């Protein structure tokens, strides 16, 4: 029990770190999405024919270069989707630095499954 206070401040740093990594992803994606929506309202068109929008990263890039509103919003959405993955990756790093081997392994395992799911998704 005597060790508890030290352990807690340690854990608090961990939580602050994860919270900050989430905030970074959320704010960045929100700004990009808001920018895209403003662009959409200002121009009144999505930059694509009706019911068409980018569905792959290369298509997304070519749309962003042309500043197409729907592409900018999609970029924000992709950043948002990447945020939980980024959070898991940040946690791996955190547990590694804390030398918590068990949780490094657990978070690495989750990250591996996530990456596998993205690869499977691409193959479908």
């Amino acid at each position: 029990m005597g060790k508890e206070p030290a352990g807690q401040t340690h854990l608090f740093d961990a939580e602050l770190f994860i919270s900050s990594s989430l905030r970074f992803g959320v704010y960045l994606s929100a700004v990009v999405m808001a920018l895209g929506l403003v662009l959409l309202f200002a121009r009144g068109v999505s930059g694509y024919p009706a019911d068409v929008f980018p569905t792959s990263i290369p298509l997304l890039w070519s749309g962003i270069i042309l500043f197409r509103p729907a592409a900018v919003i999609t970029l924000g959405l992709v950043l948002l989707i990447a945020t939980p993955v980024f959070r898991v990756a940040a946690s791996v790093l955190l547990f590694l630095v804390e030398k918590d081997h068990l949780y490094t392994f657990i978070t690495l395992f989750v990250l591996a499954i996530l990456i596998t799911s993205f690869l499977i998704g691409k193959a479908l």
Partner: protein
Amino acid sequence: MLIGSSLIIFAFSILAGFIGSLLGLGGGIIIIPALTLFLNVPIHEAIGASIVSVIATSSGAAIAYVRDKITNIRIGMFLETATTLGAISGAFIAGLVEPKVLYIIFALLMMYSAAAMFQKRHSELPMDVVEHPIATRLKLSSEYYDKALDETVAYKVTGVYPGYAVMYGAGVISGLLGIGSGVFKVLGMDVFMKLPMKVSTATSNFMIGVTAAASAGVYFSRGDINPLVAGPVALGVLLGAQAGTKVMERLNNKTLRLIFIPILLYVALQMLWKGWWM
């Protein structure tokens, strides 16, 4: 027209984010019917938007819950191994067992949980919990500062095996059906692992984003994530979730559970319905 429909989507997404962040759900319960019934959005785009909504609720709410230590990150990380495995193996499971049977089993488990939750409606915090050896080994037991009670609440974790099994089921069901994964996580932690209700909803919130991200790639490449729909949804949900965290931290565990029970029953009936007619 463009601005008008975006504003409508934005407005009910705020509500979805608010409720989702309170209860540890993704908000699909509100997003999907609102988009399909009122705005005539095709169902596949509504489901794509609800996946985005889950990620937005999760990340948006977790900023506050993790910082304020209501989320138990160790429990979250540990159980994510089960939910993500469930999510990717869901398709295989569906090949082995009739999905109809799965839905009915899960719906019955939800009804049982609703009854169990109703029985402990008067208990604010779990009592006399004996810590499971694995929980000790994984350092799952923890504490949080409860703003409503104005005290630090220490809690122990039990039921690791049934809890883990329910999380695996939550992963499978969200991979197959796209609904109820948050509901399942909350009931697993509240009913089986005996966590305080707030810790259960905040930790569920933390986890659902990862489970949803695991399937979001598929939806994206399939063209289910329409930016004109999902963009306003994401922004509205993020805003609603920020507001929801402020309210949730000040609510009693009892109140939170009472709001959760009807939603649990609603999802159980919805699942039973889908299982029956599939």
